[in-house]
């Protein structure tokens, strides 16, 4: 532990974002970086807790105190090695993880200024790539083959782990490139796709095979493999089946996000196919992260106004007594996209889409009241009768994804990530992938 008193003298400094007027002109990454001296100083704030709640809260079990210490001391390579003991893709989580670790940081408890774990993580891996600490390893093959269906976070995680263990891994994906939602969900301004390409290239060099454009049914798995990992995520978005759903201008969030990323990757779309908010008033239905991604995207496309509505009440700002430390706090989150210009409203139910000539012109919404459930459990929703129409030319449905159902699986078929447990965070998908990989390994070893 480098400097036991740094937390008392060094304040938390976030690298912050590019200025709004600058960043909304392009799809480049919005987050900035600190110079390495400041970065090391930030790492020095870690108190090396006797009970590191950050490490506990992290689904991957990242050993923050250990790599913070190495980082503080300028031992970048050591930090990189410790980091990758638990995390195969710090370059992803370092950018887009909501950082459960930081919420559980003891400095968050006492000061509201946790260590900048996520940014530090990102710095370590980027420095490692820059300095050439990331090796291309050759692994001794054990002669067994595993097929991974889906090249999203969990699929990549399973593949990377099994490859390390010596399995010959083939990853099948229905899309034209790997990454899943990392590539076709998360906007480029949060995660530049070259970061994914760099990793895929590395995995390929280490022996993982990727096959794209392969739609594979669970009951018709490709032959010739000793085991299979189904990592197909949650393909079905939750729909809003109300009047006017068929109107032109109502889209699923991913239709917008996926296409935008493809456009940026150089693909061409006809005007009819194109989902473009340029010059439009946009309503985002759903107050989560996907909704927020939609906001940033439509702003960059040139939307004239953006409104985001949510059916649940507005969470408290800063601290929520119902979810005390070290739990994940249910509080109001404001993303970089929110700062780029939008109105946010809560406690609104969408009654119907209103259109003219088959084109969306607005959405009728109505206020709701949540009443406590006498049986306990989820509160009961009641409409309050206060109706209004929000004018818009584009409505984006960002209301989450349905948990997929699976038929009974053969012994050598395993599930991982969202496909197993429903939509969740990238970091959980990665953790699930690692767990599945070790289950597959145990299964194949004991066979």
């Amino acid at each position, binding site marked *: 532990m480098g400097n*036991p008193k740094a937390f008392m003298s060094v304040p938390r400094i976030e690298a912050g974002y590019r200025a709004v007027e600058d960043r909304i002109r392009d799809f480049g990454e919005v987050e900035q970086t600190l110079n390495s001296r400041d970065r090391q100083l930030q790492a020095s704030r870690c108190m090396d*807790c*006797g*009970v590191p*709640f950050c*490490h*506990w809260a992290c689904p991957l079990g990242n050993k923050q105190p*250990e790599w913070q210490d190495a980082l503080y001391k300028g031992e970048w390579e050591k930090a990189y090695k410790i980091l990758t003991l638990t995390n195969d893709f710090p370059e992803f989580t370092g950018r887009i993880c909501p950082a459960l670790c930081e919420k559980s940081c003891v400095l968050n*408890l006492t000061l509201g200024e946790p260590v900048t774990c996520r940014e530090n993580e990102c710095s370590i891996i980027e420095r490692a790539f820059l300095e050439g600490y990331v090796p291309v390893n050759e692994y001794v093959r054990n002669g067994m083959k595993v097929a991974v269906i889906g090249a999203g976070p969990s699929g990549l995680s399973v593949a990377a782990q099994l490859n390390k263990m010596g399995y010959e891994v083939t990853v099948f994906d229905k899309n034209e490139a790997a990454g899943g939602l990392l590539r076709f969900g998360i906007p480029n301004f949060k995660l530049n796709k070259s970061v994914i390409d760099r990793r895929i290239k590395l995995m390929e060099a280490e022996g993982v095979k990727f096959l794209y454009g392969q739609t594979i049914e669970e009951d018709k798995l490709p032959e010739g493999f000793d085991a299979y990992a189904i990592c197909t995520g949650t393909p079905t978005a939750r729909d809003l089946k109300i009047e006017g759903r068929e109107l032109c201008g109502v889209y699923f969030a991913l239709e917008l996000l996926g296409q935008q990323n493809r456009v940026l990757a150089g693909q061409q779309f006809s005007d009819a196919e194109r989902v473009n908010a340029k010059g439009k008033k946009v309503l985002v239905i759903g107050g989560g992260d996907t909704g927020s991604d939609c906001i940033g995207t439509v702003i960059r496309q040139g939307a004239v106004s953006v409104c985001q509505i949510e059916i649940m009440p507005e969470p408290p700002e800063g601290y929520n007594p119902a979810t005390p430390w*070290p739990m994940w706090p249910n509080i109001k989150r404001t993303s970089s996209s929110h700062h780029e210009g939008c109105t946010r409203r809560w406690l609104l139910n969408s009654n119907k889409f209103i259109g003219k000539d088959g084109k969306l012109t607005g959405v009728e919404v109505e206020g709701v009241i949540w009443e406590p459930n006498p049986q306990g459990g989820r509160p009961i929703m009641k409409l309050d009768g206060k109706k209004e129409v929000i004018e818009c030319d584009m409505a984006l449905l960002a209301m989450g994804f349905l948990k997929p159902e699976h038929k009974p699986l053969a012994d050598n078929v395993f599930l991982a990530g969202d496909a197993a447990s429903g939509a969740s965070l990238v970091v959980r998908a990665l953790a699930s992938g690692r767990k599945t990989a070790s289950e597959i390994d145990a299964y194949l070893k004991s066979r």
Partner: protein
Amino acid sequence: MKEYHQQQGLYSSSYEHDACGIGMVANIHGNKSHALVESALTVLENMRHRGAEGADGKTGDGAGILVQIPHEFILLKGIPVPEKGHYGTGLVFMPKDEKKQNAILTTMIEVVEAEGLSLMRVRDVPVNSECLGETARETEPAVKQIFITGVNGDELQGFERKLYVIRKKIENRIADKDCYIVSLSSKSIVYKGMLTSMQLRTYYCDLTDDYFTSSLALVHSRFSTNTFPAWPLAQPFRFLCHNGEINTIRGNRNWMKARESVLNTGLLGNISELRPIIQPDMSDSASLDNALEFFVMSGLSLPHAMALLVPESFNDKNPISEDLKAFYEYHSILMEPWDGPAALLFSDGRYIGGMLDRNGLRPARYLITSRGDMIVASEVGVLDLDPAEIKQKGRLEPGKILLVDTKEGKVFYDGELKEQLAAEHPYKAWLADNRIQLENLKSGRKVENSVDGYAGKLISFGFAQEDIDKTLIPMAVNGSEPVASMGNDTPLAVISDRPQIFFNYFRQQFAQVTNPAIDPIREELVMSLTEYIGCVGNGILTPDESNCKMVRLPHPILNNTQLDILCNIRYKGFYTEKLSMSFEAARGGEGLRDALDDLCRQAAKSVDEGINYIILSDRNIDEGYAAIPSLLAVSAVHHYLIAAGKRVQTALIVESGEIREVMHAALLLGYGASAINPYMTFAVLDDLVKNHVIQEDYKTAEHNYIKAVCKGLYKIMSKMGISTIRSYRGAKIFESIGLGESLLHTYFGTEVSTVGGIGLNEIAADAVRLMEAGRKATSDSLLPNTGLFAYRKDGIQHAWNPETIATLQIATRTGDYKKYKEFVSYVDNKPKPAFLRDLLDFKLAEKPLPIEEVEPEESIVKHFVSAAMSFGAISIEAHEAIALAMNRLGARSNTGEGGEDNARYHSSVDGVSLCSKTKQIASGRFGVTAEYLVNAEEIQIKVAQGAKPGEGGQLPGFKVDKIIAKTRNSIPGISLISPPPHHDIYSIEDLSQLIFDLKNVNPKAAVSVKLVAESGVGTVAAGVAKANADIIVISGAEGGTGASPVSSMRFAGISPEIGLAEAQQTLALNGLRGKVRLQTDGQIKDGRDVILMALLGADEFGFGTLPLIVLGCVMMRKCNTNTCPVGIATQDPELRKRFRGKSDYIVNYFTFLAREVREYLAQMGFRKLDDIIGHTELVELKPTPAGSKLSTLDFHRLLHREQGCALHWDGRPYTAVGSVKDREIIAAAAPAIEHGQEVNLNYEIHNTDRACCTMLSGVIADKYGAEGLSDSTINIYFKGSAGQSFGAFLAKGVNIKLEGETNDYFGKGLSGGRISILPPMRSTYVAEQNMIAGNTGLYGATSGEMYVNGCVGERFAVRNSGAIAVVEGAGDHCCEYMTGGRVVVLGTTGRNFAAGMSGGIAYVWDPARKFDYFCNMDMVELSLIEESSYRKELHELIRKHWLYSGSKLARTMLDDWNHYASEFIQVIPIEYKRVLQEEQLRKLQEKLAEIKAE
């Protein structure tokens, strides 16, 4: 006779301790008289408070007397003995059964006749059994006296020797345990028994016969921790009686056994017939007597044998001649010291004398009368003597001998005796020619520190990253062991499913109550790590230079170069052999067993071949082999060689990759290794240096590491009270948890395992697992972080983890019982067990009780207390929150050792008092005043603390702010040191005295004694109960702490379950259980824990870490750095602002806990918690997986229950102080106490009047607080010899003057009063040359004055924080740990003056300019008194001394002040001087600012 010693539970007779009062009376001219015997008996009777009684109130622990054979008396009894000295006699204890007696006599006659003598007569010794207590009577033997005659005139020379041989042979032939020969000699005879000191003369009416005469007598009264029948253990033994304890006894006994083969001097014939030299199953004192007797019989003189067995310290800090040092060094090669604390009195019938061990921790005072009588005793005033008759008074000094030859009529003082001994042979030249010093050997060979296959080997030897980061780096950089906080909450080695290195199964033992720990830093002068390796010759008792052909090591840690040199000094005539510690991995336990057998045989063969030392090594292990755990290998070889009689002929050196921590080194040495080489650790250091992880170069890093290990060894040795590594080696001051009995028996020479455990199979399996993990490692793989210190998800399990902490905090904050139950489920359903109780469960009733029938929560909650946590260690906010909560619940909070702001005694929040009900008193005595003590419902004496038993502590200066300084009676900014022992508790009778003192000052309070679980703690607990404690705390080793050396936190003490069960069983066995409340602590978290600990015997339950967590602690484990981010364990005002705890949360917790306990009681079918205490039959064992380590555990000893006796505290009132002089004084002083009128009183005083004026002080403090009465309101004049603790805690306004003398602990805890002590008016001796006050005066004084017109004993003014004192000479360790006040010594001082002194000032009159040698200069500086303010101060002190004590010396000085003032040395602590200067500067600046402003 009743048989007691069947061992079913955890109690073992080998744990027994005793301590006592001793005395001797001799006429220097050898004039025999019955009056002398009378005097000796009176001496004994006047020390009755030093002995003890059993639960029946009548059975004594033992008393006895040794006198010359009363020839005339025997003749008058009609026994036709030949002339004086021509017959041998002695008492014999025999079974009552006459048949058995006859059988024994037949054997005796055979042996006697075989030696050519005859058993002339057997006399029935008349005894008065009526006076005995019940327990003593049940085991009373038949007492016979035998007479052996038939010696020829020319055989007289060897007659004593022959009698010795006869006795040894009889002992060896008679198996009957009830037969014991008390003594057999032609010169002296011993009468003793299980008696109180008052019963001795009644029981043996011989002693009161007018014709029963002697010119010398030794007497002894025993205070044993247990009152089990032990007639033979009463003292004196054949040669000596002993007050104290032999700490190193296990090692001494083993080495004596190992040495038997080389001890023959020819005088005793074939000594193999006399073996064992040390009689088995006896006490430590008895063993020492056996050894002394053997050496004397082998031809050594009495003082020579004593100097050999109990040598004084002879390192650089001791002022003795070079020749004498050589004498000691020569003998130290042959024999390890029998380390005290010991005051020893001895006699062979002609010579009689006494000595103290090197530490001098037991008192012994002597006086010589003008008629030529000499009296030595633990106390003064034990005989009424006319002051005019007294020629000289003094004390035995540490390591010094005093001897009287009654035949020549001469007194020999130490100097003369020792010079004679040193001059007998040219020891200095012998050493110079034969003994090689390792540090002087040089070699040109290059030795590598790196190791091939480094990464893999690290893992194979069980290294983890934390070992390097948190242990080795701090050691290599700072040269000391790292410090950690918050206790150890990880599973026991045997419970963990991770592969363990073998060291992890062991725990250090430590001294508590029965013997004091030593401070190895401040009292370094008695410590030594010097080791000798080589081969001891075959005649070590025959003085010869070949005996010292050895290599001397400055310390037992060898670096690679030194080991290489040792392997290659053939040219000097030293031969060595390396044996590999490895076993065939594939063959598992079987392979390990064979490898150990093989290793032992090879070692024995090496000895036969004349190898000087054997190196056991795991450096080069072949493929397919795994390393034998080094400790197992060493211990196996050590014990094998002892059994084979080949042990002392060689030395064992261990070269092992496993060794990294201090504990590892201590274990290897403790089980017989002479030196160790931790080569993997050196490889780690090499790697750290090469990779620039640390800035040091290799040499410095290695030096620092070795220094840290040496310091750690000192600490581990000293916590058992052991001073030298030579007596530590092989002393096995450890215990194991989780090792099976057969393993311990075969390889560790231990018979009993508390909870059973693993054997060779499991050990081999772990070693192989580690080896295989190592094989897999590649050169660049990271070492795993196992989460030993800081929680890791994939690491070692911690009981305090994110889930338990978070749920507990949320539950108590929100007051949500459901959430609390969630916490409980995390505690109870750990993924894997961690503590012993996790393997236990309890029976539920078939028909549960309705909950309403169970006692209410409010009464259950009274069983809970908060553990001692000092203000200083934790913030005032946290401290007060806990006090408030416990007071609201009607339970008790504990001040901890830091005192308490007296404003809190009378302030409250919402009607709830802020005053802690339990006041702790620890070795530092911080803030312990009369006022503090009277404001307590319970006074807790902290003997040891779970996280670091046997160690002192230090509150660094930067943590001492204004308020802390105030509560601790010190000054902000100066460090406060707590000594390892209480300097008024060196043994059990001292504890009894302290309890007596405390009960005097506050008769309403319960006195509790806090102990830490270790094997033997039950025995200590029984002793504590007999010392009249009301509550006994058995603290688990898992207890938390603000700061503790890492090795102590993890490796000292044992699980509370074992300690508690042993205490419960031993107390019950002694019939003492109903008398005391038994409290326990150590990671207790929920209702299940409480129920299980209650079933094992606890009445009360302590919680320390847990309330802190409730208040917001998140187990940062950073308490020692003052950076606690939640404002609990810090004094930083910024951080304290972050404290968010509330007393309500703690109230919530204890209410929930009580509710949960109540629910369990209902389910179990009991109405009260009391009803299940000690009912181990309700405990069930949880199933364990077959074949696992857990399945090897055996709980039958732990769950043993004594039948037919009380199992819990019976609710009786606290023990009360009987009639004391103070009751009379208080009545007489009523006008002063009630109305503040001046009162003048006169009393006579005796040594049996103890703690005089203490109760009076309590009354004043209760009424008037710290303010007391105005000066000299109560004036009392005493005449005579005051008992111990004279004027303890004396309150302000009381002015006492003693004409006469006083015993130990005078003025302890002085709280504002004034004490003056002066010699009797009619005395003829020179006041300043004689000792009139005992040891440890003024200990922990906080304010007040003391003037002594005479010398005081050792350790005067230890931990004085504010009193002023003037004395005319002092013993060793004066002003130790002093933090305030003034001490003036108008005379010489002993060694180690001002050790650890961080505040206050001392002035020493030093006309001879020798003082600097005697002063410990680590923390102070010396100067002449130049500043006028100091001169003035000194003048005033001496003036007052003259005024109050009438000192002639003071008058002389005042009359020629300029001359004398220049002969004084001022002793001022460097830190204190700085603080004073800063203070002055600040005042100056303030003044300047004022002037400027004007």
